């Protein structure tokens, strides 16, 4: 039976969850025996080259590109996992929710105390740029998500136990210390 295919992406996350995936340290070699990586920032595959079994999403959706990548993952992956607080509840970026997005742009490019250089008040405006959403959306409010691994970042052992259980079908017994929201 061919190895299950895994893909990962980081949307509006800080890449800390991917760092936590890599914190499984030497077990990454075991992981390469169990699974085959497809589209992911930690290898060179940039587009889905085959149907993927497990898609791991870090980060919520803060701009339009995040939404498109997330929908692309939903289309290509059988199972989607929300990894970390940002994917599950918007995380730290969601602290801007409720604040009009114009105020965030204004503070960063025009009104901020360290923005004297931007005399011509230039704002990021190019068709290639992703468009900022009105607020940060958790992934499961945009596409159907199958599993959730909380934490900021989720502990490496939690990711490891969950992945192995998912791949091998063994029952998942998560020790109390591993499920954390911080």
């Amino acid at each position, binding site marked *: 039976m061919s190895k299950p295919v895994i893909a990962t*992406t*980081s949307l*509006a*996350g*800080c*890449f*800390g*969850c*991917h*760092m936590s995936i*890599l914190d499984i340290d030497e077990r*990454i070699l075991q992981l*390469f025996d169990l699974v085959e990586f497809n589209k*992911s*920032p*930690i*290898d*060179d*595959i*940039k*587009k889905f*080259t085959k149907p993927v079994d497990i898609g791991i999403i870090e980060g919520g959706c*803060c*701009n339009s*590109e995040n939404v498109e990548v997330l929908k692309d993952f939903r289309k290509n992956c059988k199972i989607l996992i929300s990894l970390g607080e940002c994917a599950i509840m918007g*995380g*730290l*970026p969601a*602290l*801007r929710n409720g*604040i009009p*997005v114009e*105020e*965030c*742009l*204004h*503070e*960063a490019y025009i009104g*901020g105390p360290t923005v004297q250089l931007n005399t011509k008040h230039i704002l*990021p405006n190019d068709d*290639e*740029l*992703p468009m*900022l959403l009105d607020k940060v959306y958790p992934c499961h409010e945009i596409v159907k998500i199958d599993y959730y691994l909380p934490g*900021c*970042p989720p502990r490496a052992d939690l990711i490891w136990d969950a992945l192995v259980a998912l791949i091998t079908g063994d029952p998942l017994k998560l020790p109390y210390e591993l499920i954390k929201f911080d």
Partner: protein
Amino acid sequence: MSKKITIEPVTRVEGHGKVTIHMDNNGNVYQTRLHIVEFRGFERFVQGRPYWEAPVLVQRLCGICPVSHHLAAAKALDVIVGAGTGEGLTPTGEKMRRLMHYGQFFQSHALHFFHLSSPDFLLVSTATPPSET
């Protein structure tokens, strides 16, 4: 009509990135762009939070260099609470900060070498063929 090549996401690095190469009709590159476009609005939504929460908030600017942002915020707090006049910061405190920062360098370099670039050097066969990149 100009032609464009998009490399997305930029891989084998820690963090997000996209490259677009813009060419004119006969294939000459007239502009190349590196896109790091993660605008979050920290400058605005940090306002109104208790100041001692700043280090814990801003360390989540980046998952690879959280310590750097944490220390930057800590130094800003030094000024606020008056510990920032050099001798105000105890030697141990200063050494703790350096140790934390070295820890991050060490972790980041090890990670980049062993996880991200070693496949090219050690397991050449498994490195993905250029056609798929």
